[in-house]
């Protein structure tokens, strides 16, 4: 092997080699700003935050190594942390299927060949581009306990609506509604692109065989759409585990800790309590959790995702 490559190298004329070296230099120069950014703002921070997670650190004085204490404290000694993890899981388990199913229904409707679908798709995408503080304002008044729009509406039917965002058992479902409303546009677009990639001949053939619209949906559309469904499920799941903005603007984690989610608590621990070591450990735990759950879903996809 070694001799072989040495011979080869000898065969390459110096001019070609110089040319090759020049091209490598050019490539790195083009990528240089990105490389600098990744090293300075991502790679180095990964190392620092890993180290930080094994220390007590207020961000000002020098950090003190404490081994795995932060991790142990989180899992064993912090009841708020456990509640926050539970809330995050509940939010995800309710929110991701709701969003994906809604996105699917809307994509199917948006793919119909009738006038008006362009407006429809634009409408579904609108909340996605609104900033979360504005969204928070609007929904805060929609969910108002007494003069909120929903409860005023329910009063017409003599239903006394709950306090929604101020009720510890309704707060997460309420935020899930806002989250699905806001987030459905993006997965819908991806599913729509998938729908438009399904060849028309498939439907023609099924129609000739007398398949009903219903069985065309279940036998052709959905199976052929599983790669896109899988993709949006995974990406929604990862985003849902890291929800922050909606909680910050709608509930601030309350009432009590009943809607406090992972990143919200992490933000409080780091930037309000100044416990950077503890927060770094939290950050790594959620990365590990997301990685494991994504890996599990990746393995499970063989059972239901259809690749041709």
């Amino acid at each position: 092997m070694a001799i072989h490559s040495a011979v080869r190298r000898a065969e390459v004329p110096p001019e070609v080699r110089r040319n090759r070296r020049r091209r490598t230099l050019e490539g790195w120069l083009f990528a240089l700003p990105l490389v600098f950014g990744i090293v300075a703002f991502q790679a180095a921070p990964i190392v620092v935050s890993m180290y930080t997670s094994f220390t007590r650190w207020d961000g000002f004085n020098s950090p003190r190594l404490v081994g795995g204490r932060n991790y142990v404290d989180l899992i064993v000694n912090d009841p708020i942390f456990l509640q926050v993890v539970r809330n995050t899981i509940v939010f995800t388990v309710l929110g991701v299927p709701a969003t994906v199913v809604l996105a699917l229904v809307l994509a199917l409707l948006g793919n119909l060949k009738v006038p008006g679908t362009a407006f429809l798709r634009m409408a579904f995408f609108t909340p996605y581009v609104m900033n979360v503080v504005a969204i928070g304002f609007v929904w805060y008044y929609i969910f108002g306990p007494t003069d909120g729009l929903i409860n005023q509406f329910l009063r017409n039917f003599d239903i006394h609506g709950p306090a929604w965002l101020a009720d510890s058992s309704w707060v997460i479902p309420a935020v899930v509604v806002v989250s699905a409303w806001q987030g459905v546009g993006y997965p819908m677009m991806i599913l729509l692109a998938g729908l438009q990639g399904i060849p028309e001949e498939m439907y023609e053939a099924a129609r000739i065989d007398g398949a009903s619209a219903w069985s065309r949906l279940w036998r052709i559309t959905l199976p052929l759409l599983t790669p896109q469904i899988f993709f949006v499920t995974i990406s929604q799941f990862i985003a849902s585990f890291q929800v922050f903005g909606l909680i910050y603007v709608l509930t601030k984690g309350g009432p009590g800790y009943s809607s406090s989610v992972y990143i919200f608590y992490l933000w409080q621990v780091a930037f309000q309590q100044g416990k950077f070591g503890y927060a770094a450990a939290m950050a790594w735990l959620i990365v590990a959790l997301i990685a494991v759950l994504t890996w599990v879903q990746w393995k499970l996809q063989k059972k239901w995702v259809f690749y041709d």
Partner: protein
Amino acid sequence: MTDLAIDDRPVLAGGGDRQLPAPGKRKFQGRRIILMIFLILLALSFLTPALWMLNASLRPEEHVMDFPPGFALSHPQWGNYATVLRNMPVYFLNSVKLAVLNVVGGLIVSSLAGYAFARLTWKGRDALFGIVLVTAIVPNIIYLLPQYILFQKIGWIDTLFPLWVPRVLTPVFGTFLMRQAFKSLPAGLEEAAQVDGASTFRTFLTIMVPQTKPALAAVAMFTFLDSWNDLFGPLIFLTSPEKQTLPIGLAQFQNEFYTQVGPLMAGATVTVIPVFVVFLLAQRYFIQGVTGSGFKG
């Protein structure tokens, strides 16, 4: 990207089958019209919160929470917008500044890197691209804590630098999109220019970049959205009230006007309108960006 990017002409125009209905299809036409009305109602119901916001921003305070809500233009309260304009120009200016820096910087960095990954052959390219892929997967929160400490050390807290420098220099998503766009250009496009003796950079700038305008537009839109709507960044990196961007400024505005719904909704409307305008103008590129992002690495 090409085969998944929505071929939007026939569907977005809604004219998939424009041939005249055969007599036997008349019943089918009726169903289409009902379906169309249903879809438009559905779309409107989806828009209700945004429409309510717009409406409430002009309603007199004592009627703002009426149900059903009255129509704004019967007694429009333009004064709500005057209140907003008195209170928010600083935040607006900061947000505009950041959006411009982020979009321009992000376009430069991502098109340069995307070009290097797509069209140049160089040692270390594929390994580097793998690293870029990995950094895209790692949740941001891992980077943010050390970044905060770094910015504290170099005196960047409470300045706008943390809100654009890291973002401009790590446009991972933009780099993917630009790489795709450059890859889809025909092979050998550069060669003619290089025969004329133009440098790689000149070829890139004068021949290649102009061919990727749709992708550049998509990257610009996404970057603009990210920058304009960013909440977490300003929340941790900015401390003085007068240095805030729009989202936080809006939240501060709430502390001041929490009892007055009208001005609050006017404030919310003002933050949302620029995004709607950009979105409506560049909808097509936006959709291409979304659909091009998920598939085909």
